């Protein structure tokens, strides 16, 4: 199925499409094009959102109303946001958006119409703070039918009209015309193990190690801090595993019978068993190196191992920001007399 102004398949998009597919969507497309396995999916682009808002505006103004708000009048902002969110969540999708999204969903799920998908907001803004208000956390897992999927798309859009997000935009006096939201729809991975990977040490900023944390089941348990994950530190270049901390992993997140996820206890024999084999850790390290090389900078990555195929898939990758911002003075500089470096050892207390 071809990509359009409304739908963008991962294979057809990359980071430069960010204005239309958002950061998350662009990153997943970029990964797939770089040869990294990600769960199949597509993006409901900002073109769809634009069409939707245009239709909404025909009934009653949306953007003009937001722009008229005083950010200090919390009561008015709250009331207005509540109303607009209700309209977004309740409105019909324009025909072309409905058709194309439904067709893409069917193509994605192939024969299994009830194949579970994840619906995730993908903000277009470059502004990290705004992005975090505008529903970066809006991820709906294990959505099992088309109607639900379409509903969650509108929920993602609605998150643009949260009180925090609107207040922030008003304070900055940003034009509402530029505000848009893309939505990622991708196949769920029924993860045997999932977690995060840092291609630069979160503890020391060391660029030569890869830190991997993981636990049984879906990654939400690790990301949400509900389980103490196993932790490994690997030499990025050598693959040497210098740290192995195997934790008691009491719970895991699994798909719930009626859609969504649930937390269940881990089987006794798996409680203190490592959730990744050494071979899998090395494979993950290779993936981390490829992604880092592709982007030219350290990455924070979410990953999962498919329970059925045992394949490692990346769910997300974003640039590391904490240590990159700290990089300052070089550890040492070239000396006019190369021998003078030895004074760091022989010269006494420094």
């Amino acid at each position, binding site marked *: 199925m071809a990509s359009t102004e409304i739908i963008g398949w991962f294979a057809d998009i990359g980071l430069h499409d960010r204005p239309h597919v958002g950061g998350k969507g662009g990153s997943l497309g970029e990964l797939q094009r770089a040869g990294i396995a990600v769960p199949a999916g597509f993006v409901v682009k900002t073109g769809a959102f634009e069409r939707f808002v245009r239709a909404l505006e025909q009934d009653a103004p949306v953007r003009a109303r937001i722009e008229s708000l005083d950010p200090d009048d919390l009561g008015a902002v709250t009331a207005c946001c509540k109303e607009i969110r209700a309209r977004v969540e309740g409105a019909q999708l324009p025909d072309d958006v409905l058709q194309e999204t439904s067709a893409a969903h069917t193509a994605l799920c192939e024969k299994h119409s009830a194949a579970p998908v994840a619906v995730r907001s993908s903000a277009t803004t470059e502004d990290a703070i705004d992005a975090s208000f505008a529903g970066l956390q809006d991820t709906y897992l294990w959505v099992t039918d088309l109607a639900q999927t379409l509903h969650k798309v509108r929920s993602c859009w609605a998150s643009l009209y949260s009180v925090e997000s609107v207040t922030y935009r008003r304070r900055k006096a940003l034009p509402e015309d530029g505000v848009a939201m893309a939505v990622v729809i991708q196949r769920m991975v029924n993860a045997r193990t999932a977690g995060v990977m840092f291609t630069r*040490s979160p*503890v*020391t*900023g*060391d*660029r*030569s*190690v890869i830190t991997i944390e993981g636990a049984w089941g879906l990654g939400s348990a690790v990301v949400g801090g509900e389980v103490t994950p196993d932790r490994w*530190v690997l*030499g*990025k*270049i*050598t693959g*040497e*595993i*210098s*740290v*192995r901390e195997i934790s008691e992993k009491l719970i895991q997140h699994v798909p719930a019978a009626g859609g969504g996820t649930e937390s269940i206890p881990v089987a006794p024999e798996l409680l203190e068993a490592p959730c990744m084999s050494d071979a899998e850790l090395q494979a993950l390290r290779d993936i981390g190196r490829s992604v880092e090389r592709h982007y030219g900078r350290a990455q924070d990555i979410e990953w999962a191992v498919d329970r059925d195929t045992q394949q490692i898939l990346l769910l997300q990758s974003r640039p590391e920001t904490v240590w990159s911002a700290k*990089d300052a003075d*070089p*550890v*040492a*500089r*070239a*000396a006019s*007399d*190369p*021998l003078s*470096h*030895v*004074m*760091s*050892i*022989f*010269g*006494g*207390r420094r």
Partner: protein
Amino acid sequence: MKAPEKSTGFPLPSSLQVVPGTERAQAAYPYHTQFSKGDDQRFWFYNSMHFPEPMSAFDMVTAEAAYCALGAANTRVHCLPTTLGIDHRIINGRVYIGGNAVTDPAEIARRTEEFQKRAFYYYANWERLYAQWKEKMKALIQSAQALPKPQLPEFEPLANVHAGKGVAANHFLLDTYQKTLEGYFRMWHHHFEFLLLGYGAYLTFFGFCKKAFPEITDQTIARMVAGIEAEIFRPDDELRRLARRAVELGVDAKFREGVPAEEIIKTLEQAGKPGREWLEELQASRDPWFNINVGDGFYHYHRAWNDDLSMPFAGLPEYMRRVRAGESLERPVQKLQAERRQLIQDYRELLGSDDERAAYDQMITLAHRVFPYVEGHKFYCEHWYTNLFFNKIREFGGLLSANGFFPDAEDVFHLTHYELKTAIIDLMSAWSNGSAPRGPDYWPRIVAERKAAIREWARHETPPALGPVPEVIDDPAIVMLWGITRESLDAWLSASGDADGKEVRGFAASSGVVEGPARIVKSVEEIARLQKGDILVCQVTNPTWAPIFQKIVGAVSDIGGSMSHAAIVAREYGLPAVVGTGNATSRIKDGQRIRVDGGRGVVTIL
């Protein structure tokens, strides 16, 4: 009762008791090595790295000779800015050492100026000076080899008389003995001629890597610097060659596990031309490459391959099996070199800026320049020369025991080198005046007493350190050679309560995790006990043990750092290894199942 506070310090030297009943053996050590009152003010640590077992009276010569030379190099030759030499004391057969730091800033500045005139000259002219060093060492080895076997004929040979030699045979006992001793003291000066400078250049690069890559493992840095064609690999290379030759010559069936080396050699002598040809090949390998001893060269009983072929021969059957299976036993030198280049390049790319990369290049260039010496000197000094030295003393032991001084030639090592001179002069006098030597009435009791003392001392633990803990260890020699830092002292102070724990910690030497039965191997005689799949647990590992690394699945040692040759060999064999545990051979029991985590430096008793 209130628990004693941690980190207040170690026991004072004056509180350390000579084990009752061993007082006379203790008194044999020179007066200047006995602890005295003033020593309570200073910090001392037990040199378990070089002297892990109680030292016999003669073997103490190594402490004397080595510290004389180390101190001269640091204090007077290269003038290290912040440190002078090392003092040593002996109690219960254990060697304690203490540094002499320079703390006055004006004095440090003065010494820094001297240091740069001296040390920098060495760095700048390293290859030439090292080539010259090898020639000096070879000449020294030759003169030691040329020393005659000590013997006393009944009459002076007629030829000597007719030649007008004018000096009789007994004088040459003293002459040979003094030359032997002189050569050993001189050898240690050669040993330290480059050593601190070499380690310093290596540690400069090491320190840079630790700052640039805070989580890099020691062994990765070691792999970037370690040589691939160092002399220390040659003995094992020779064994592989001999295994290949045996298969080519069709005599490999004569090598069977458990058959003593002497018997195999006898069989080969009778196996016609191919057998003799292999024995010639063996001879070519033995000189000089089997002049490697099974320890670190600091104990007379660490015998060389040449003196005890059981170690090298133990590895041959397995090598031959691999040759027959079509394996090439050649070390893939080019592949290893390419891997090392790649490793250096990959880490270089990770650096944060071109500034850092330029500094990295300068430091690793110097580290590579010095490292052939750091790796190579041991073969010449601690192995080749030391073997010659102890064997020459052994010859004196043979002569003295033949004259009734003590029952066994090996007993000579229970005399100090001062006493040995006395005993030799006793024998010289007796030979000259025709009367019986006095030694046979004098030495047997003393030898028996000292043997008993060593057994007794070995049964007693000794504190890892003595005296007040210094605020900071700023002595590059102590940090470099012994790896002692303020952090490691704190670890010692807090470790005392953990003796019953299931974990034994050491240096991460070669990564990987393995489980298996522990085989405690304390001497070369015990290597035959190693079965395929065992984990070797020993006091010192050493490149001479390389042939048995093909049998084992992991290695643990009491002594050694991540740059020790054992660690290098383990990495080449891809075996998990933890070295420098301090006490693995006493805490782990033979046959116990253990887990070795070579990446973390932890051994767990299961």
